[in-house]
């Protein structure tokens, strides 16, 4: 039961820090509570009770509840789920992230959610999340609560069709970690919340239990139905391979500790060849495919046709954005609608320009610039495609592109090239 207590202590820490962020946020609201008769201890207990109830109200069964089922289902629609659809642990992770991001409650502003992409946790992205809402958090007296806590959710799959028994030790290791807040998972077709393990059994809480509605807007609503009186056990082998692991990181220091401890658990033993997920330095976007494009000479539109060319009956995959453009272009072509060569969006405004041969661009400033840049080398005879007076605008736009930290903007690079060449 050691693990269970450890996991529950992690959960308690989460609640405690939620409370502390809450405290930092609304010092005035909590002050009168300290004046309760009966000394500091009683006041403390009373305060805890207030926080406890506040947290529970976030999960109330009303559309206005910040993390209530209504809100989550509503957010699920943006992920392509309809009311009545079943959810998987990865979709749920993203829905939770959105719900917390959109939450307006001051208590929830101290928390952020990070969801790993393709079984990879990008360290810089997590650190960024730690500081994301820091400004909102800083108390009036400049309290040291300058870091946003981050809940790290890692959707993984521990085997193809069935769970791979090689991962059992990994799951045990994860659940033994102090910072782990449990695993969203289940057995096939039935969702559970795994909180710990004992020998070869997982300890879980089962949400499949009808309970009567609680009106959380009342001041003394009953709390007992929000807690699980009897956790259950099931053997590891019954576990569905699809699950989402959760970690709670209070600060950047915490995150460093988590990644250190996790790297020990993740170290592949000779039996399990690969870790279930990995940590990587830097931002996720640093590893995206747009990175190695620099080498190419820039009127690369011609090469889109070659994307996915085949050798024999093989499909050649290329590490290039042109692959993306090629696929998008094909899709758009299939729809028989003109699409812009730059943004590939297919929604051309009425004033589509077609200066460069058969290529079409929308007159969105970025696309238009792009067009000009492709067009430029194909009109060496001095016939400039650029309208007079646009040079100043160019400079302004470069600046904007640079500052907007907008990724994947080819224009920026092209402009740089152009400026360097000039």
């Amino acid at each position: 039961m050691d693990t269970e207590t450890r996991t529950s202590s992690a959960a308690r820490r989460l609640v405690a820090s939620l409370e502390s962020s809450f405290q930092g946020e609304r010092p005035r609201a909590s002050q009168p509570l300290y004046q309760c008769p009966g000394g500091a201890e009683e006041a403390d207990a009373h305060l805890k009770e207030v926080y406890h109830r506040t947290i529970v109200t976030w999960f109330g069964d009303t559309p206005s509840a910040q993390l209530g089922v209504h809100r989550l289902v509503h957010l699920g629609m943006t992920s392509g789920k309809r009311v009545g659809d079943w959810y998987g642990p990865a979709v749920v992770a993203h829905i939770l992230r959105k719900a917390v991001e959109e939450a307006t409650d001051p208590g929830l502003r101290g928390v952020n959610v990070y969801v790993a992409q393709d079984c990879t946790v990008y360290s810089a992205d997590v650190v960024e999340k730690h500081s994301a809402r820091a400004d909102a958090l800083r108390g009036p007296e400049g309290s040291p609560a300058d870091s946003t806590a981050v809940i790290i959710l890692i959707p993984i799959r521990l085997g193809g069709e069935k769970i791979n028994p090689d991962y059992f030790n990994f799951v045990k290791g994860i659940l033994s970690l102090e910072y782990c807040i449990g695993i969203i998972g289940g057995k096939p077709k039935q969702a559970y919340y795994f909180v710990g393990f004992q020998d070869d059994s997982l300890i879980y809480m089962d949400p499949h239990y009808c309970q009567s509605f609680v009106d959380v807007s009342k001041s003394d609503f009953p709390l007992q139905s929000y807690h699980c009186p009897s956790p259950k056990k099931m053997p590891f082998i019954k576990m569905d391979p699809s699950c989402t692991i959760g970690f709670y990181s209070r600060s950047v220091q915490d995150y460093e500790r988590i990644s250190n401890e996790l790297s020990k658990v993740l170290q592949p033993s000779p039996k399990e060849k690969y870790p279930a997920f990995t940590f990587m330095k830097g931002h996720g976007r640093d590893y995206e495919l747009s990175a190695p494009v620099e080498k190419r000479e820039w009127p690369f539109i011609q090469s889109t046709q070659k994307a996915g060319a085949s050798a024999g009956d093989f499909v050649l995959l290329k590490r290039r954005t042109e692959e993306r453009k090629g696929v998008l272009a094909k899709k758009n072509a299939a729809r028989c609608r003109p699409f812009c060569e730059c943004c590939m969006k297919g929604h051309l405004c009425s004033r589509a320009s077609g200066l460069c041969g058969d290529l079409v661009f929308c007159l969105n400033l970025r696309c238009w610039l792009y067009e000009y840049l492709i067009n430029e080398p194909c009109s060496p005879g001095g016939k400039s495609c650029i309208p007079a007076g646009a040079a100043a605008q160019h400079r302004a736009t470069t600046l904007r592109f640079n500052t907007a930290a907008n990724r994947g903007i080819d224009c920026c690079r092209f402009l740089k090239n152009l400026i360097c060449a000039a």
Partner: protein
Amino acid sequence: MSSQYQHSIPFEVRRREGETVRAKYPNKIPIIVERAARSQVPELEQNKYLVPSDLTVGQLFFLIRLRVSMRPEEALFFFVKNSIPPSSSPLAAVYEEHHEEDLFLYITYSNESVYGA
């Protein structure tokens, strides 16, 4: 290992093709990407791919996502012999360790399972 491709094409043919491709494109890797059995993901139109050997698993995620039209948000998982290859490792490394005797690397892909029935 229940690969449809392996079932449908005899070993000798596969091996011969594997050898030819390896000889012809020494810096490319022949892989077979197949959907895991009973998975809800869309099927790929083609299963045979030649990838640059320095392509990482993470980048392959990106390319396959495009081909099955999945958003980055939707979970996609790769398996090589029923375990998850780390997204940072280049396919060349995965290939060296896990290619079959026919000189192909077999990757299965799957999405998450939903809970409920």
